[in-house]
């Protein structure tokens, strides 16, 4: 059981990393891009905007946490 947990923790750390909100944000951005691409509205801008928001928010959280 301990080894299974360590195995799961390794893959979580490998794929998700330090900030799980970034991974969730990427999934939401890609899903929204898919939804938008089914309409007549251009969808290419959504992921770059998500990158700006996700990276800035993640850094802000990290800096705020380091000051606590």
């Amino acid at each position, binding site marked *: 059981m301990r080894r299974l947990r360590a195995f799961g923790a390794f893959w979580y750390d490998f794929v998700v990393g330090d900030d799980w909100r970034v991974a969730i944000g990427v999934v939401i951005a*890609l899903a929204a891009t898919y939804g938008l691409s089914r309409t007549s509205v251009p969808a290419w801008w959504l992921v770059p905007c998500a*990158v700006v928001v996700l990276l800035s928010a993640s850094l802000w959280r990290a800096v705020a946490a380091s000051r606590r």
Partner: protein
Amino acid sequence: MNAGALFVAVFLACAVEAVEATTIVLAAGTTRHWRSALLGVGAGLVVLAVVIAALGPALSAVPLRGLRLVVGGLLLVFGLQWLRKAILRASGHKALHDEAQIYLDEVAAARAAATERRGVVQDWYAFTLSFKGVVLEGLEVAFIALTFGSNQHDIPLAALAAVAAVVAVVAAGVAVRAPLARVPENTMKFVVGIMLTAFGTFWGAEGAGARWPGNDAALLVLVPAIAVLGLALTAGLRRQGTPAARRPAPVASEVQA
């Protein structure tokens, strides 16, 4: 993406990981037992070869759009994490990745550990330390090389870049017989974070059904735009003030150089 960009992206990513693995193997070999450490390297390379042999054909079989969506998403998550760490280090909010200090920590831990013989391995600690270092650092290298290569239908070139990076780093490590502390690792991680984020953005959005203006030429805008974003965020965080004990890395000047 042209062949040059593919080669540079994979080479830099692999070089960064190879520096970290070399530090661990050097610590295991010099303080414990070289033969056991090298056996650990060999065993780690066999595990990586099995992973690559299983993943490579599997990736080739996935339809391109699905591959770009999944791989783009994963690269984007990877890239944002690399870039986040690089910006925090460059702005002084996180300690710099210091190979010399990591080497000293590993050496101290290796000296304190007991010696145990298992089978043909004379020093089990040196073996497992090297094995873990090679597998853990190599797995990320394998993933980056395979995903970049399969997306660009040029796995041989990606593999060549990965092997060239590992050979260059190992040769340098053997030559100096010391941790490669002078490699600008933090700057390289910054550049790799930008590349992974840009290509992840491009492939992820394309896999999700978006059409980029200018098709592949959009990457020529995405890469510098994300670099500017990274540098702007670094400058912004530096202006906010940094903990006095941490020295910010000169990312902007080194990237330009």
